[in-house]
């Protein structure tokens, strides 16, 4: 285990200077390398068609503030552990700025699942940071639903692959199912663990990818899944929430 962590810490990470057109390929290389480094049990899928979130958006998204994001209910609280091993409540990370929350596990081997969420969140971060009006106005949370493997050390190493050191991007886990299950239940995020016919856990999971947009009032304002998740539309949704809170000047007129 220690060797795996070491490999991750020494791993290569994305940086903003990389040409945007190359980022999907490089991200996938990083993801594949990470999966191998972690020795996650996984099947090799062939001819996987990448989700739309990896490519340039194929349509002009509606302008920020021009459409409604009706409330889909309240975000839920719960006991979590951050990547430094500190116990906390999830609400400590919600409520002061719009937040993107994705449920992932670090050994996820479906390129259109957790890696897509992480890739898009990185894109959202980069786009908002590039604009002085929106820099540091959003928080990203990658929340593991695999407490057995994703210890604080593991999620810290995983996070280091994908974020800038100064990014407001939190990587969270839990101390086990007693803390995790109430949170997953509240967010309606269900996971199916794969067992072989002897009843032994195979180390793989299936789940519907969901990324939640949560506003400053801790209300869920949108949910994205694989076909729907793209940095450009998420950025516009975040900008819409900023306009809602602070008026159009929050996102225009640099």
């Amino acid at each position, binding site marked *: 285990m220690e060797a795996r962590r070491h490999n991750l810490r020494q791993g290569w990470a994305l940086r903003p200077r990389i040409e945007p057109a190359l980022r999907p390929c490089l991200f996938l290389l990083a993801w594949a390398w990470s999966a191998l480094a972690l020795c996650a049990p996984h099947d090799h899928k062939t001819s996987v068609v990448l989700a739309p979130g990896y490519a340039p958006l194929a*349509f002009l998204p509606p302008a920020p503030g021009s459409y409604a994001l009706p409330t889909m*209910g309240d975000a839920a609280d719960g006991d979590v552990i951050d990547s430094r091993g500190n116990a906390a409540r999830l609400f400590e990370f919600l409520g002061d700025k719009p937040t993107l929350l994705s449920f992932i596990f670090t050994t996820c081997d479906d390129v259109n699942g957790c890696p897509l969420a992480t890739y898009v969140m990185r894109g959202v971060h980069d786009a908002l940071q590039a604009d002085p009006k929106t820099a540091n106005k959003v928080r990203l949370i990658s929340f593991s639903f695999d407490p057995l493997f994703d210890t604080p050390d593991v999620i810290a190493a995983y996070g280091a692959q994908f974020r800038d050191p100064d990014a407001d991007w939190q990587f969270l886990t839990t101390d086990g*199912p007693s803390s995790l299950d109430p949170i997953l239940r509240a967010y309606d*995020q269900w996971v199916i663990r794969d067992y072989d016919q002897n009843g032994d856990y195979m180390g793989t*999971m*299936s789940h519907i990818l969901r990324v939640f947009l949560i506003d400053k009032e801790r209300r869920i304002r949108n949910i994205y899944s694989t*076909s729907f998740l793209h940095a450009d539309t998420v950025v516009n949704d975040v900008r819409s929430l900023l306009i809602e809170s602070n008026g159009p000047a929050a996102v225009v007129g640099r």
Partner: protein
Amino acid sequence: MIKRGFVMTLLASLLTIQAAYGDETCMSPYMAKIVGQEDYVYIWTLGLEGVGDGEDKLVTVDVNPESASYGTVIHSISMGGRNEAHHSGLTDDRRFLWASGLDTSKIFIFDVHSDPAAPRLHRTIDDFVDKTGGIVGPHTNYALPGRMLITGLSNNRDHGGRTGMAEYTNGGDFITSVWMPTDDNLQGAVKSGNYADGYGYDARALPRRNVLVSSSFTGWNNYMMNLGKMMGDAEAMKRFGNTVVIWDLHARTPKKILDVPGAPLEIRCAWGSQSNYCFTTTALTSKVWLIYEDEDGEWQAKAVADIGDASKIPLPVDISISADDRHLWVNTWNDGKVRLFDISDPFAPQQVMEEKIGEQVNMVSQSWDGERVYFTSSLLANWDKTTVTGENDLQYFKLYQWDGASLKPQFNLDFIELGLGAPHQMRFGARALYGGSSAQSPSGLGAPPAY
């Protein structure tokens, strides 16, 4: 016992790998998918007076040929009355089946994950009209990410065809509603032809183009009227939808209203990653229509084929597109026939086969590999036939095997003889979607599955 991997969940985007995965082809692209053989078909069934308990039912049929109970009804849950049971749809994670009633505007949410062989009623939405600001007749239950889109057929002001769409969380909490664009309130949409009737019926999404397509039928006054009476009422026959609306999917705002005269019903969009088009059929004019994005990025509508002899009113109803976008099954309710069109050229569909299925036929669902084709018979309580001209084949659920050339009957369940009622919408289920007993724990960290 089933093998892990024989059936599994997949993410929606993987569906673009055509013919590799199995599921009915008419579902939301956002939905978890089934690989291989489905275990169950859930049939939303109209209650008929004098048939069994006379109540609407969700009927579960075992359709796995390796099962000892293959081809039999293994479960039925009655709803305590009749609601004009019509359409149903699964949430994006397939944990819940939403089934709606066109008369009472109730929506019944069934838990299909705790025991997929025996769905149980989880929640009933009985304030749909109030919550939505007057929408009546919830029809299509369509999965969007973490939520359900419900199309309406009518309204509570005049029970005519003007209506809207609503969104609910997967758990059944109301989110929002929007009304269809009309001449007096286009809501920013472009009226491209003669009509902006505000009618509704079905809806389907093309997420890669940020498009939602909606169609239009008729209001409560008509769909609850006796068919013969309505056909003889010239004024009533004027009150059918003539439009398809193109929406901005992300913003849920109407962009363009297309003329598609004659009550365009079911919408089925192509699955191909570069196929920016959908099909619909018109009930009154008996045509296949193509709804497509042209080279300039403009959405257009074009009648591309006739369905039978329109003068004989075959009445096209449900359609089903194959996973490879090459074929379209078209049911015509009045003559009880299914027709298969080759749609390899979507602008020039060619009919390649035609077969009588029953006295009447309404819904059609096919497996993703196209090898299994299911049919049910019922259209609407006051429109369904009550007498037969041939063999007693009025209300049924049938499975056929399709080998690319002919349909071979597998089983036929007579829903009258079984005391069930009039079967309508079919949805597929599979045990392995829910991970066996670990389904009781969101993290899956409970006991391993029993199989």
